[in-house]
């Protein structure tokens, strides 16, 4: 084939890819996408075609960068002994940030542990994110959870547990409440591994039966710790699982922020307007080890990890903005500086807040009056702490 022909074939293929994405085709074998693995549009389209405007496109990129930098700083905190654990968001910004931007104030989010660094998009302050990592007084959760958890009813953000998939079953009730009140929808998150838990099955089944306003987003980063997707389930795709529950599933390129935005916006609106649930499979890759306690060299090759770093969602989004004439090196540098300053300031505030007092341990076990047995236990502890210092975990040792 002549180079001309090759090119025109490529164009034709690109157009088909574009059409499939624009049509929001369910149950495809290949992920829907608007930009290719380097970030260039698969074919000609305008921002308007994909429901975006310039400001939002730029905003998404900026928030992705902020998310990435929060996440990188978390690793620093672990090294410094200021946080004892980290479970990373790096590589998933292109999934979370655009999705969260499609939501309204009426909508709810049922997140899992990969989201926290991105939750500033939902209105959580950056200092609160850092405070959560360190368990200081600005932590909305009051230091009650390991790093990697966030939630607050003011942001309609469920305070998820650590059980894989647990937020899925809870999302049934959130969506049912929204349905009862007649407004809003719920986006419920989990990993590819989480689809194996009964909680996923419950949510999917109840969502189908009650036609719930929910968009279930499975962040398929191809591993559950060391277990590869192929040993997690034998289904062709994860999106196809929606067939078992009577609604549509969509396989999306989770590292293409444009398709994530476009599809989620449409499916969220569908849910809000009473037309029922959807399943999104966001195909992506975890660029870091599972957590600060993991050693991913035991189960995946350096080549594989390298490949995905080279096609980092951040790079792809930047290239796309550049292609669209919305970004350049100057803007990049300005952004980087802004983000750096923002993080520094937030981190300081978070750290300065200090740790909660031991008395707070006895709050929030029960609503209302603290039961007598806890008051007694509090008294016992008070007496004990006259005889020993409370260990300050930020000071190390045990």
């Amino acid at each position, binding site marked *: 084939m002549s180079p001309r022909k090759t090119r025109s074939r490529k164009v034709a293929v690109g157009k088909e890819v574009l059409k499939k994405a624009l049509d929001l085709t369910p149950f495809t074998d290949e992920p829907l996408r608007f930009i290719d693995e380097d970030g260039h549009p698969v074919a000609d389209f305008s921002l308007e075609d994909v429901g975006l405007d310039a400001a939002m496109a730029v905003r998404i990129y900026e928030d992705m960068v902020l998310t990435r930098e929060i996440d990188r700083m978390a690793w620093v905190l672990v090294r410094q002994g200021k946080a004892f654990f980290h479970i990373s968001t790096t590589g998933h910004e292109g999934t979370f940030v655009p999705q969260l931007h499609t939501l309204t104030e009426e909508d709810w989010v049922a997140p899992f542990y990969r989201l926290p660094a991105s939750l500033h998009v939902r209105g959580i302050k950056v200092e609160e994110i850092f405070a959560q990592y360190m368990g200081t007084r600005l932590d909305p959760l009051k230091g009650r959870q390991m790093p990697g*958890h966030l939630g607050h009813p003011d942001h309609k953000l469920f305070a998820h547990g650590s059980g894989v998939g647990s937020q899925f079953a809870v999302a*049934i009730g959130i969506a049912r409440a929204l349905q009862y009140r007649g407004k809003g929808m719920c986006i419920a998150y989990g990993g590819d591994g989480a689809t194996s838990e009964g909680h996923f099955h419950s949510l999917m089944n109840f969502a189908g039966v009650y036609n719930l306003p929910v968009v279930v987003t499975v962040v398929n980063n191809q591993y559950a710790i060391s277990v590869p997707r192929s040993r997690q389930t034998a289904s062709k795709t994860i999106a196809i699982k929606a067939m078992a529950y009577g609604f549509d599933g969509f396989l999306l390129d989770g590292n293409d922020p444009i398709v994530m935005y476009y599809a989620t916006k449409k499916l969220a609106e569908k849910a809000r307007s009473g037309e029922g649930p959807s399943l999104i499979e966001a195909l992506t890759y975890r660029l870091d080890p599972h957590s600060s306690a993991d050693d991913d060299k035991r189960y995946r090759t350096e080549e594989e990890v390298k490949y995905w770093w080279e096609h980092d969602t951040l790079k792809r989004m930047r290239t796309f903005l550049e292609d669209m004439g919305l970004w350049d090196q100057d803007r990049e540098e300005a952004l980087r500086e802004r983000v750096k300053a923002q993080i520094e300031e937030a981190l300081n505030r978070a750290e300065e807040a200090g740790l909660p007092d031991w008395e707070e341990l006895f709050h929030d076990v029960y609503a209302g009056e603290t039961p007598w047995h806890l008051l007694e236990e509090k008294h016992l502890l008070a007496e004990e702490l006259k005889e020993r210092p409370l260990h300050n975990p930020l000071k190390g040792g045990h």
Partner: protein
Amino acid sequence: MPTMTLAQALRNALDIALERDDRVMIFGEDVGKRGGVFTITEGLQEKYGEMRVFDTPLDELGILGMGVGLAAAGMRPVAEIQFIDYIWPGFDALYSEAAKLRFRSGGRFAVPLVVRSPYGGRVKGGLYHSQSPETLFVHTAGLKVVIPSNPYDAKGLLLAAIADDNPVVFLEHKRMYFMSKGEVPEGYYEEPIGKAKVVREGSDVTLIAYGMMVLDSLEAAKTLEKEGISVEVIDLRSLMPFDGEAILNSVAKTGHLVTVHEAPRTLGFAAEVAAFVAERAIEYLDGPIVRVTGWDMPFPYILEDAYMPNPVRIVRGVKKALNLL
């Protein structure tokens, strides 16, 4: 005051709760058209519609997960588990979510969820329709646990549970649904969660019970009275929090303590009562602290009667506590 069965009192409480507060929702397997397998929700779907009272798929994890989510989003869900023996497929949502959400969220989320379910034996229900697993709920910090023994308490406690901002496991003895009858006021009232009731005063020995075992205990007390032994019977009503003061007051008076329950002995609730008293009032005791319980085995079927605590077993337990055996 009208006379109601336990079933009627519970239905009446649910009706009032649905009427008073449009955030109350009732759901579970067969609770809609069928009115529940014990008819506790009979007529409620018709009256309040399918968004307020509805059937679920056969999935306790979905039911309880839904309960937590509804509560987190501001509703006041009342979930029915068809038999408490079947809560385990959904236990994660109770143990890891409902009980811990308030604490883990720094008090930002409340979980005003009520989980109603029939429990208990003497119904020829065998292994999976007779168990009394209250220990597993009581030991799960963050939950409250309530077990009424009569229609009046049942209604007042159920309304209190629905009004409570904490997750409450509300266990109803299935043998009592239609056999237990009593006067019940028609309107709204609450009985306090955490308060026991002295249902029979006595001076020689304290007998602690809850649920159907209150009836067996009262019967045993009558028998013992004939032998000149005066038994004080305390109906705990709530196991978490439980009324430690009522127990101590009585033991201080009687100096002897027996606790009765259907659940297996080892780490049954009687263990907590014994440990509680042995930790702070051992000096009052003039005899062993005795447990009268089911045996440490799965619940049997044909030999159910050999498993179940009963007035004879209780009488023997009391005599042991009094060093008469």
